[in-house]
């Protein structure tokens, strides 16, 4: 509850900071605001409860997710240091929107009422539409923002329709096991379940609702691509889990097969689509689709473990993605072509020779995304496979393992390029804050790869 209040207030404060002559204070102030929100999140630790007539559910699980969301936001925003130096920058608006969007994400992981879910999704999505188009002079960015907005609005409409059907069937917006399942009204419940799934799967970019992903990831400024591939995904999966495991748990026989098919589709489209990509951001977009598939696997298993697996997977994925996009941001700054930063895969050519630190960060991130042992990604995959295996879905698991093998091929493309002798880059400058963030993400990936139980034992 407290981080919602804190972030709403500090977001407003940040907007007012935009009036000050000195634009430099906005960045440290926003980071401080996010840290305050992080601190307030733990006020309710070990004090589970419901707030505002069962609108919000607070317990230790949701607090862990709040912390994950806020920490990822801090890590990502760390890369925007020095950004206010640009002539056209409007830092106050960006940071305010980021803080407001976190309110939405927090609502999505701790809702108890579908209205709160809808509102959370909307707050997060509207913020993402705006941030996608934040680079106004980039025509690809404008296109991406418009595409994302139109499709996202449509998905929201479908989600809302599903919620209306759900309300028609049960007479309540509250999620929980107490609702009336089965009987004559279950047809509406089925329709509601399907439509709500469609709307939410769109937000987490699972196939076949993934069509926006490559274009939007490519068009958006890299920092916000990182933001939407980590925070939106984490919040979206928790929301999916909450809806499916509570309200629709009685309908498991119904949605189970849908999710299984979607997992297969996401894995195939994501991994096979990524193979032929030359742009690093498009590659990451397809990789994000495939990771959506892996995370959906956890939903197929037994609900006791699923949330822990989702949590672990999203932490690992977030760390690796922040590393990857961070390296892209730092390196692509050095090579401007036609007035735009260069974001193709061969940007990384000779990175190892040029800057060993960045190359290490990139390689470890890629290994983690591919799921190689001794990185966090391996355990993330291991846990979701184990969950799926507990429900006896071996054909899906075989499929997933095969697709992981394909994934190794394309994740190694940038790695191999960075090992090559020829380099196209001058020396690369990294500011100390970025270095610090890289250290955290890389260290975290490796620690979780060696001692996964540190995080897993939280649940």
């Amino acid at each position, binding site marked *: 509850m407290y981080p919602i209040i804190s972030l709403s207030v500090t977001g407003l404060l940040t907007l007012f900071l935009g009036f000050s002559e000195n634009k430099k204070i906005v960045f440290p102030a926003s980071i401080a605001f996010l840290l305050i929100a992080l601190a307030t999140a733990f006020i309710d630790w070990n004090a589970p409860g419901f707030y505002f007539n069962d*609108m919000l559910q607070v317990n230790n699980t949701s607090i862990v997710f709040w912390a994950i969301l806020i920490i990822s936001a801090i890590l990502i925003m760390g890369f925007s240091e020095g950004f206010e130096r640009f002539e056209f920058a*409007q830092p106050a*608006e960006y940071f305010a*929107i980021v803080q407001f969007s976190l309110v939405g994400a927090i609502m999505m992981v701790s809702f108890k009422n579908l209205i709160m879910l809808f*509102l959370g999704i909307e707050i997060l999505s*509207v913020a993402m539409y*705006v941030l996608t188009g934040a680079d106004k002079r980039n025509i690809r960015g404008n296109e991406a923002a418009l595409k994302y907005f139109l499709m996202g609005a449509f998905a929201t409409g479908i989600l809302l329709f599903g919620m209306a059907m759900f309300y028609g069937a049960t007479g309540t917006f509250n999620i929980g096991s107490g609702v009336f399942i089965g009987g*004559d009204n279950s047809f*509406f419940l089925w329709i509601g379940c399907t439509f709500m799934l469609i709307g939410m799967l769109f937000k987490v970019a699972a196939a076949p609702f993934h069509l926006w992903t490559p274009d939007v990831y490519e068009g958006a400024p890299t920092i916000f691509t990182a933001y939407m591939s980590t925070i939106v995904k984490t919040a979206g999966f928790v929301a999916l889990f909450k809806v499916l495991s509570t309200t629709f748990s009685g309908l498991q026989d119904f949605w189970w097969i849908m999710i299984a098919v979607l997992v297969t589709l996401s894995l195939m489209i994501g991994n096979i689509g990524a193979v032929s990509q030359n742009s690093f951001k498009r590659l990451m977009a397809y990789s994000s689709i495939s990771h959506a598939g892996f995370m959906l696997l956890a939903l197929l298993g037994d609900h006791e473990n699923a949330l822990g697996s989702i949590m672990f997977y999203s932490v690992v994925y977030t760390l690796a993605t922040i590393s990857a996009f961070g390296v892209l941001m730092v390196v692509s700054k050095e090579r401007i072509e036609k007035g735009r930063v260069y974001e193709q895969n061969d940007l990384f050519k000779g990175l190892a020779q040029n800057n060993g630190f960045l190359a290490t960060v990139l390689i470890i991130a890629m290994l983690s995304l591919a799921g190689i042992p001794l990185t966090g990604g391996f355990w993330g995959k291991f846990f979701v496979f184990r969950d799926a295996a507990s429900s006896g879905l071996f054909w899906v698991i075989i499929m997933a393992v095969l697709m992981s093998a394909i994934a190794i091929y394309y994740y190694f493309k940038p790695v191999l390029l960075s090992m090559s002798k020829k380099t196209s880059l001058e020396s690369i400058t990294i500011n100390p804050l970025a270095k610090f963030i890289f250290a955290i993400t890389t260290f975290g990936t490796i620690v979780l790869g060696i001692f996964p139980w540190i995080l897993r034992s939280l649940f």
Partner: protein
Amino acid sequence: METLETIKNLTMTQWSFYAVSVLTLFGALGTILSKNPIHSVIYLIMTFFSLSAHYVLLNAQFLAAVNIVVYAGAIMVLFLFVVMFLNIKDEAPELDNNKIVIGASIVGGTIGVILVAAIRLTESQKIDPSTYQIKTGFIETLGQLLYSKYLLPFELVSVLFLIAMSGAVMLGRKEKGERNF
């Protein structure tokens, strides 16, 4: 003959319901079928208007008025405004592409069939007129609900609007060296 009898025995409310429903569906069909985007928008306005009439039939007067003020009165004016600025006639892509039409009809038809089936299979709960609270749709009831049970979402909507507003200002602001038109 039997249908004729039923038609004769319709009450005033039923008559209005059917008339308004026909108007709504006509407007909705016109929206998607007309080739001229301006006509589409006008049909859509008609749809919103007849939806408002439905709200009135359900005794939700406030909802009806707000639907007119916000959707028909403000959003659709902006829609019309923008559509009029675009000269769509000249550069319209081939929208009468058969594949799209066939695909859309199949998807729409399937969903329609499913919904109809669901409605037929569901036993609708009849409202008992004697216990029905006439004030259900009134603004007083709505206000009380918004400020008590749904207080948190109601307040958090302001965050959504604030994002939308500051985002619009951010994206729409004129920058140095940019021309107006």
